[in-house]
């Protein structure tokens, strides 16, 4: 594990490039040291001792045009040094001279007078005086001592050997690679003294540069990397030049689209690239939340029901929703997945699940692609935006080991809950007359029951029900990564164990993830393989839903005197309760105390292989193949004692206890062939052409079986069941589809100033009828680098000013398969005598087209004041045309509806990002502020009559302010009846009817759009402070200008039943006496509360997303002494607080949480 850190003190034979690499790569501060080139001094010292003569020759170099030697030279010099004479000759002839300084230095008193003499002749005259001879080498003249013979002739062919005797030229040969050991192609190697003399590296990073004197300093530059100056090395070993990525420039340098790598300077799309380092600095929950903290256009739709349930997939959107659910989906969960962006792992489609479970240590960067120029590459899949994950390539070198560990402490955030205590609750019940009865025979037991409860309160019963199912959870995540190898063969292996323990007792999600990356370079072939095995074990809390607990009355005892769980709550031991409760409520703890479980285990295996062939300079062919196999089994069991079976009597007693077993299987494969060509013509014209053909297959099945009758809760294996579920049958579904796609992309860049980009894609899918199987998608983009213009270059403040715009289409395929065809299904639970029957599933529409989104985007990227300020702005319009929706048909057609392209939806908005460095001292303090402002306006332009009809039930829904898709309104509008408030004289609510009259009657026809859950603006505000090894990052999110339907007010404050615990505002906010101006209806008003605008509140919220501290021990000497390369410790606080203008209970089924993470990372 030990290696040399100061290689330059060693002899050159020990000089090994990897030593150099290791040191360089580990030094992240390198960029601040560019003023004093790293290699300059020590390298030159070591190079001095290198035998000078290393002569290599190319073929065909002997052909020299004799005419050029006929050039006329005039010279008049007295006692000059040879060097100055040669310099003069150089000027006149245009030839370069190559010589060894120490051979020429001594000659200082040369005189020459030449008039109009041919060049060759002049040379003869001058050099003979100095006892030197020369050779021509293209446009170079090599000057040498007469007696000198070439020594080292390694690595030359026999053909070359012949020539060597007469011609000798010195070369620097080497490779340019990046931090990760990846070759950098197209890097420029120039002489510092004469920038005209330079070469560009090959695709494998190699270069061959003729040099003219050993003291030449080479300047190596490549876009996105830091400029490096290095003294020429003539070592036989190839010279390895390792370029460091420009830290801030990375995202601008190359845009990884997952299909083609695009240079940012000529990229017309809107995108954002995020590095692992950033991901780690902005949150520790998971990749998805970190991404959101960095770029809020990656929007996680907060789920008030499921909070921070570790087993719940988040709903994600980029730039609003581009799809709306169809008639049969508006109330189902699948609707939320409609707008999930496409997720691509190293060029292959993967799932949101995979993004959450991936080993963060394997990730090199994540790119968000937003507009048409970027997403049209994905055609039918790109409508919702694309997230491209690029995994790390192994770094060459000796075996390197990185280790990371995180301890996560999580605690429920119950700050949104404000409930009554036991005494107040009981008092509320009393004053609302729960225990009053006009009939003495019932009044008596009621009062007795009240007194029983009062006794309980007086004896100190004050149960904190919310605390019972919750816990402070501790979980550990650890990962280990090994990597190494040489330039030919490299490997890395990573393993991660990520335990997530939710704040509900017993809920957990444990991921074990292993991956191996191999990379092998053979000549101009690069072979790469990535294998990932992921195992997930998840468990739901046996305590059930959090909502079962928070409304339980605090005067109830969860346990009896002996500490056993009470089966029912509030049991007085008599039947006094019988007028209040027909049956006493069951204690949810009782079911939790049984051997109930609900768990699952999943294993996914993904293998990705890519072979890259550099056919010639700029021309590359890549073949890729990937498969993913996943298996999941879920098991849920409720023992016979479970309260679900309380009503089973008679013969049904044996049916108590149930088991559900679910099996999911999936097999996906994807293959692609990718050909790209890039060429620079005459320095000014850069062209890129790329094509890819890909095939994709997805075959997934899901099957659930249920069994019942478990006599003993210990015998909880499905085969111990009495029978299958009564009247049950296997349920599940299966889908199987294939797609093919052909994509072409061309890019032309003129002098880095103007660029134009075009993409065309043809997608075919088995989901579509034979006549509409293929659909075209396209995009076109234009850009202008203003900062490259002459008139702009004088400007000192602006380092970069790029304008870009794009237009194009992409599609969405996340809808029901087979809508274009008339399909039949088979009756599985019905038959006709002994015949099986088939039935029509749906009337096909052969004219059905793919749903397309037409996207417009204009944007700019600006860097100012030596990159102290960077700005990005985008404005976009995204129209979803041909929205797939159902069309109602008269019943005589025989089907209720068919599917057609008749909807339209529009998203319009802008995104502004800014980063400002207040201080940027390489060794001292760095302080940056960054922030973003986003705005999106969504509008439903057209929907089908069928969808309108289907939504009538939603409109008529008395209690839930459902999402509706109504023409002219946002799909996130809140639909309720406008309210005039609570009538102070009656305590009843007064509504505003559609005709403008006040009314006490709630009518579904009066429902209108009141407010919008989309905020007017949202974004984030981050700051980063760095001093030496210490980094502090804070990330805040905000949303302003939106509204929310506050369900807490509707359901928990305006409740008409006081049997369960309520929000404290029942006490403080409800109307009690005539004349009260109260926000909430009369406390004795038992009429149900319907959805009204009273509960629509402005929501302005600031979220503290994460506070992150990191300390890097890189500069501590002891780190190196004990053999480590780097040690880093960190502390992250996720979601510490929320400041909001509304008070609403959050996380009702599963609470939200705060998380503190301690982390330790080490590399050695």
């Amino acid at each position, binding site marked *: 594990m030990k290696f040399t850190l100061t290689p330059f003190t060693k002899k050159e034979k020990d000089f090994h490039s990897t030593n150099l690499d290791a040191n360089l790569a580990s030094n992240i501060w390198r960029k601040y040291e560019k003023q004093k080139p790293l290699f300059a001094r020590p390298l030159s010292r070591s190079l001095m001792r290198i035998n000078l003569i290393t002569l290599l020759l190319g073929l065909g170099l002997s052909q020299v045009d004799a005419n050029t030697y006929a050039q006329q030279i005039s010279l008049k010099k007295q006692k000059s040094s040879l060097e100055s004479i040669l310099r003069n000759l150089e000027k006149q002839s245009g030839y370069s001279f190559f010589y060894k300084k120490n051979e020429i230095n001594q000659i200082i008193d040369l005189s020459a007078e030449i008039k109009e003499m041919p060049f060759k002749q002049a040379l003869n005259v001058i050099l003979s005086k100095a006892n030197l001879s020369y050779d021509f080498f293209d446009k170079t003249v090599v000057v040498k001592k007469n007696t000198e013979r070439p020594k080292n002739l390694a690595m030359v062919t026999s053909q070359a050997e012949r020539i060597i005797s007469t011609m000798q030229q010195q070369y620097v040969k080497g490779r340019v690679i990046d931090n990760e050991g990846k070759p950098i192609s197209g890097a420029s190697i120039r002489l510092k003294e004469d920038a005209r003399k330079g070469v560009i590296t090959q695709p494998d990073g190699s270069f061959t540069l003729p040099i003219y004197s050993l003291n030449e300093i080479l300047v190596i530059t490549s876009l996105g990397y830091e400029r490096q100056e290095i003294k020429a090395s003539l070592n036989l070993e190839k010279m390895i030049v390792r370029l460091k990525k420009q830290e801030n420039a990375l995202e601008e340098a190359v845009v990884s689209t997952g299909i083609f790598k695009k240079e940012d300077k000529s990229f017309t799309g809107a995108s954002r690239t995020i590095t692992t380092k950033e991901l780690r600095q902005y949150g520790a929950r998971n990749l998805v939340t970190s991404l959101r903290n960095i770029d809020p256009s990656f929007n996680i739709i907060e789920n008030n029901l499921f909070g921070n349930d570790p087993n719940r997939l988040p709903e994600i959107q980029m730039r609003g929703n581009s799809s709306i659910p169809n008639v049969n989906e508006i109330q189902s969960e699948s609707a939320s997945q409609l707008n999930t962006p496409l997720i691509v792992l190293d060029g292959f489609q993967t799932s949101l699940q995979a993004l959450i479970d991936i080993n963060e240590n394997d990730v090199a960067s994540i790119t968000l692609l937003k507009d048409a120029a970027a997403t049209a590459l994905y055609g039918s899949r790109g409508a919702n935006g694309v997230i491209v994950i690029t995994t790390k390539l192994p770094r060459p070198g000796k075996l390197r080991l990185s280790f990371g560990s995180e301890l996560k402490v999580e605690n429920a955030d119950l700050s949104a809950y404000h409930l009554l205590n036991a005494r107040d609750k009981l008092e509320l019940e009393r004053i609302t007359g729960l225990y009053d009865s006009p009939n003495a025979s019932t009044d008596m037991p009621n009062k007795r029951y009240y007194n029983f409860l009062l006794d309980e309160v007086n004896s100190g019963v004050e149960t904190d029900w919310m605390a019972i199912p919750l816990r402070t959870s501790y979980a550990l995540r650890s990962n280990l990564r090994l990597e190494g190898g040489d330039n030919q063969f490299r490997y890395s292996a990573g393993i991660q164990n990520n335990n997530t323990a939710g704040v509900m007792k017993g809920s957990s999600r444990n991921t074990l993830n292993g991956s191996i990356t191999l990379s092998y370079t053979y000549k101009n072939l690069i072979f790469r393989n990535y294998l990932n095995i992921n195992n997930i074990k998840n468990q739901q809390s046996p305590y059930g839903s959090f909502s079962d607990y928070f409304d339980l009355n605090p005067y109830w005892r969860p346990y009896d005197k002996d500490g056993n769980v009470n089966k029912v709550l509030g049991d007085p031991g008599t039947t006094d309760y019988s007028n209040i409760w027909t049956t006493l409520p069951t204690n949810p703890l009782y079911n939790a105390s049984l051997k109930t479980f609900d768990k699952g285990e999943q294993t996914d295996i993904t293998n990705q292989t890519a072979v890259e062939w550099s056919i010639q300079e700029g021309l590359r062919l890549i073949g890729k193949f990937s498969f993913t196999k996943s298996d999941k089994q879920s098991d849920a069991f409720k023992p016979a004692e479970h309260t679900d079976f309380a009503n089973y009597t008679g013969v049904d007693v044996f049916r108590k206890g149930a088991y559900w077993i679910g099996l999911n299987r999936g097999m996906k494969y994807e293959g692609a062939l990718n050909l790209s060509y890039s060429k620079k013509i005459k320095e000014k014209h850069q062209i890129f052409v790329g094509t890819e053909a890909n*095939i994709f*297959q997805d075959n997934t*099945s899901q099957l659930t079986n249920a069994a019942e009758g478990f006599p003993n809760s210990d015998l909880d294996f499905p085969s111990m069941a009495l029978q299958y579920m009564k009247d049950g049958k296997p349920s599940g*579904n*299966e*889908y*199987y*589809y*294939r*797609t*093919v796609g052909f994509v072409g992309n061309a890019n032309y860049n003129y002098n880095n100033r103007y660029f134009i980009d075009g993409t065309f894609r043809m997608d*075919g*899918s*088995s989901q579509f009828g*034979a006549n509409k*199987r293929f659909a075209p998608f396209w995009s076109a983009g234009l850009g202008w680098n203003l900062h490259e213009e002459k008139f702009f270059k004088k400007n000192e403040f602006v380092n970069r000013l790029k304008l870009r715009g794009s237009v194009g289409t992409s599609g969405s395929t996340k809808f029901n*398969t*087979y809508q274009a*065809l*008339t*399909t*039949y*299904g*088979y*009756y599985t639970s*019905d*038959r*006709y*005598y*002994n*015949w*099986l*029957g*088939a*039935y*029509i*599933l749906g*009337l*096909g*529409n052969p004219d059905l087209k793919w749903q397309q989104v037409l996207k417009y985007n204009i944007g700019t990227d600006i860097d100012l004041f030596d990159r102290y300020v960077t700005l990005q702005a985008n404005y976009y319009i995204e129209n979803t045309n041909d929205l797939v929706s159902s069309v*109602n*048909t*008269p*019943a*005589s*057609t*025989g*089907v*209720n509806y*068919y599917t057609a392209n008749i909807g339209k939806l529009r998203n319009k908005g802008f995104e502004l990002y800014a980063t400002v460095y207040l201080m940027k001292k390489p060794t001292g303090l760095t302080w940056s502020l960054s922030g973003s402002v986003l705005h999106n306006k969504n509008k439903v332009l057209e929907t089908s*009559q069928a969808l309108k*009809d289907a939504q009538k039930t939603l409109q008529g829904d008395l209690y839930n302010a459902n999402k509706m898709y109504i023409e002219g309104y946002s799909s996130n509008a809140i639909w309720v009846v406008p309210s005039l408030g609570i009538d102070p004289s009656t305590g009843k609510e007064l509504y505003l009817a559609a005709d403008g009259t006040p009314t006490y009657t709630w009518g579904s026809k009066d429902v209108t759009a009141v407010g919008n859950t989309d905020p007017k603006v949202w974004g984030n505000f981050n700051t980063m402070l760095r001093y030496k090894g210490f980094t502090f990052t804070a990330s805040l999110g905000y949303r302003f200008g939106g509204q929310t339907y506050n369900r807490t007010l509707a359901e928990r404050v305006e409740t008409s039943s006081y049997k369960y615990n309520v929000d404290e505002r029942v006490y403080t906010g409800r109307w009690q006496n005539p004349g009260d101006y109260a926000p909430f209806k009369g406390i004795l008003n038992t009429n149900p509360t319907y959805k009204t605008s009273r509960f629509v509140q402005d929501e302005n919220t600031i979220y503290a997303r994460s506070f992150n501290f990191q300390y890097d021990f890189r500069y501590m000497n002891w780190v190196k002494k004990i053999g480590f390369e780097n040690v880093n410790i960190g502390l992250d606080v996720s979601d510490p607080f929320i400041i909001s203008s509304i008070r609403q209970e959050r996380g009702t089924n599963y609470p939200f949480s705060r998380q503190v993470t301690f982390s330790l990372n080490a590399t050695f």
Partner: protein
Amino acid sequence: MKKHIILASLVSSLFLGSCNKFLDVLPRTQIPADKLFDSEQGFKDALAGVYISAKSSASYGKALTFGTLESLVSSWDVTTNTVEQQLGLFNYSDNRVIDQFNAIFAKQYATIASINSILQNLEANKSVFKTEGVYQVIKAECLGLRAYIHFDLMRLYGPIPSDPSTGNQLAYVTEFNREIHQHISYEEFKSKIFTDLKQAEELIKEFDPMLTYSMNDVRNPNGFGSNYKPLDDFLSYRNMRMNYYAMKALEARASLWYGDKDNAYKAAKEVIDAKDSDREAKFKLATGKEFTATNYILTSEQIFGLYAFDLAKTYTDNFGNATYRKGTSATTITNQLYGNTGTDFRESSLWNIVTLTSGSKYNVIRKFWVTADNVTVLTDYKQLPMIRTSELYLILAETAPFNEGVEYLKTFRTNRNISSLTIPGDVPTLLNEIIKEYRKEFYGEGQAFYAYKRLNIPKPQIVFAPSNAVVNYLLPMPTVESIN
């Protein structure tokens, strides 16, 4: 150059061709129509699907037999403010009533759609039929059923035959596509029914084993004692399929509705006079023997019945639990429906008292009572009656010359063991007696409402009609049809 272009286009067309092939994958839970209909079996499955659709509860499985239609004529006890009560009051504006008639309407047209889907593919894929007669039988059954269901739609939602100008016009759908089907006139609708029927009869005549073999033979193909030895089972069990005689019987029923008594008589007579090879009548009226054998549903009388494998469950869920009941004792039924004859098999055998777990006792019809298991072909009574021999006797009684008609009524009565009743002396009395028999005979089968509607019977003659009911035989157009 030209060569290259040709080669390139050849390669690319091959490539695209193989792409299309690559994209031809099918899900395992559904099957595209053209794939289903590329084999004989596919057609058979689709046809079985049609019958399953017809036996569903929104159709003949409940709504059009003992459900909605019997509630309309108040065959069952009701509680206040239930949909059943509103039906009995002919309150067509009640939301729940609208829903029920919407459901029936939609289901009936859905069944028609699945028939039309078969018929459309039948012509296109004629070549897939290898077994002789299968093509003709499937086509004829489809046409016959299409007529049957359309006729029932017209009887239910259309005008009263005596005044065809008032009431809904309906669509006679013969195509399965996205077009909106025109609502056509009463007369046009009628002619389409008979066109379909005639075509069906012509097609099936040659191939229906029902014409050659007895009902018991076709119910027991290749069985012991059966003369019918078909190669393909699919052509058997004619009594539970739209057979030739079912078409004839439907012709009689429809002709009577449309007032064509001659044709009704002719068609009914052809069925009643049909003889097996042993010179026995093919369709005999049931006697006490059937009732004794608990064949309450009288499968021997069913010229066409829908097989319902789950009939035992249907009985338990609707009658066994006394959801559908009439009185707490037999008195009401005995007195008001059967006239307390004391002999009528239906009076003595069809009803019984069930005792619920709560101890309540109700008088419940056991017409649909069947044993679920352990049945032989001959004791398998799980059939919903679609058209019965007894109805043909009543049709003959109504359409034949008076004296002959009286004879048919007498035969009918004899078989029901009520020959002691007075013989009608004139046409109105005869008609009156026939209507009474429709009510008694088809209790729970949905035919009484049609009989009342056909003759526009006033409320006093409707047995059990509640006093506050306003009889209205004209249903509004279902809202599911008016939606654009």
